[in-house]
């Protein structure tokens, strides 16, 4: 897939409150499918996610800076991608749709 410009169905799993905000069906398990052309990166996945669900704009990454909100993390293939460059290519298993990109909220607060 790398750099080919081909499009794949990427799987993204959202945390509970963003599922509600995006009005996903309850049975979907918080998973959305997105068409993302290669190279598949966190930035391109989030661009596609926000294009499909505009109500999620500003909830995962800050307006203006585009920075990941500090209480959220990105995981792919059991690895923390939160601190990787947002234009780094995600693992092939995510790019092919075999594995999801997980957006996880910190277990914190009251």
């Amino acid at each position, binding site marked *: 897939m790398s750099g080919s410009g081909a499009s794949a169905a990427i799987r993204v799993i959202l945390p509970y409150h963003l599922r509600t905000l995006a009005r996903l069906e309850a049975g979907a398990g918080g998973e959305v499918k997105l068409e993302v052309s290669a190279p598949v990166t966190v930035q391109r996945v989030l661009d596609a996610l926000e294009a499909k669900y505009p109500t999620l*704009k500003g909830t995962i990454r800050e*307006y203006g800076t585009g920075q990941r909100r500090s*209480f*959220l993390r990105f995981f792919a293939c059991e690895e923390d991608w939160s601190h990787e460059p947002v234009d780094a290519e995600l693992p092939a298993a995510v790019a092919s749709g075999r594995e999801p990109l997980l957006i996880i909220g910190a277990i914190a607060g009251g």
Partner: protein
Amino acid sequence: MSKVRVLVGTKKGAFVLSSDGKRKDWEVSGPFFAGWEIYHVKGSPVDPNRLYASQSSGWFGQILQRSDDGGKTWAPAGNKFAYEGVPGTHQWYDGTPHPWEFKRVWHLEPSLTDADTVYAGVEDAALFKSTDGGANWEELAGLRKHGSGPHWAPGAGGMCLHTIILDPGNTERMYIAISAAGAFRTDDGGKSWKPINKGLVSGTIPNPEAEVGHCVHHVAMHKSRPEVLFMQKHWDVMRSDNAGDQWREVSGNLPTDFGFVIDVHAHEPETIYVVPIKSDSEHFVMDGKLRVYRSKTGGNDWEALTKGLPQQDCYVNVLRDAMAVDSLDKCGVYFGTSGGQVYASADAGDSWTPIVRDLPAVLSVEVQTLA
């Protein structure tokens, strides 16, 4: 017959409490936006079915919700609050410069003349305006760029713009208040602003009579007298008779003059309400007794209102936007507590009953009087 709708924002969602004009039997709907902090919900005086709600979270930031059917259904509106130009810095808790950073919307004030126009007071302190029903927001940057801006500092709850008062007789005049910068007034529709803090004395700041730096908790006005303002400051209940140009203390015989809420009777502009809180170190009511204090003389002479309110083992707080009045006769008064109770009085405060007892901690209460 008239109806009332009480809009309640809590730490874990919004609730709508409805009753007829008797205000005896209540229908409770919600939670809306369950699990999110709802700092404020307020309806348009032009179209009472148009409601705006501020939904926020430490995880996911700010969402702005809008209802066009009186709170039955909601849809997200715009949530992009971008400061105009280079935001610059304000003072941090330790006195060092700190960049302006948007955190949340504390207060929404719908226009008195247009249902699609609404103002938002935000943290870090700034005033935004939408003229398209909340879809897009533009900062009224003259406030933040007032020369005193770099000297503003946060209160314990953050540097929040929490009070917005629109003058019903003068569309160009507006009052706002910021913790802990103070109160400001515009006479040109928000282009330029003037600090209105003369007479405020705050012993905890280096210059107790400084132009800015006062921790104003809330300001209230009666619509028939827009030049008369009542203020609950961090400590001290204050009054101005000249649109904030000069303030004088009217704490009088209150048992403590620390508190957050202040409001004015709907039909008696000299009748005002506060809920004294023991101190800024102990954010709960005094002596385990929940007492609303009412003055019928515009301050100084206060009476405790206790009928129906717990008078032992009560240790709740009432936050700055958590009191409101309806416009029925007799005037209804409502407030919500950190313990999740929303109390209502259908007789101007003489007696109280809880509408609900076990909501999440209440952040805000607003009331709509419906025909």
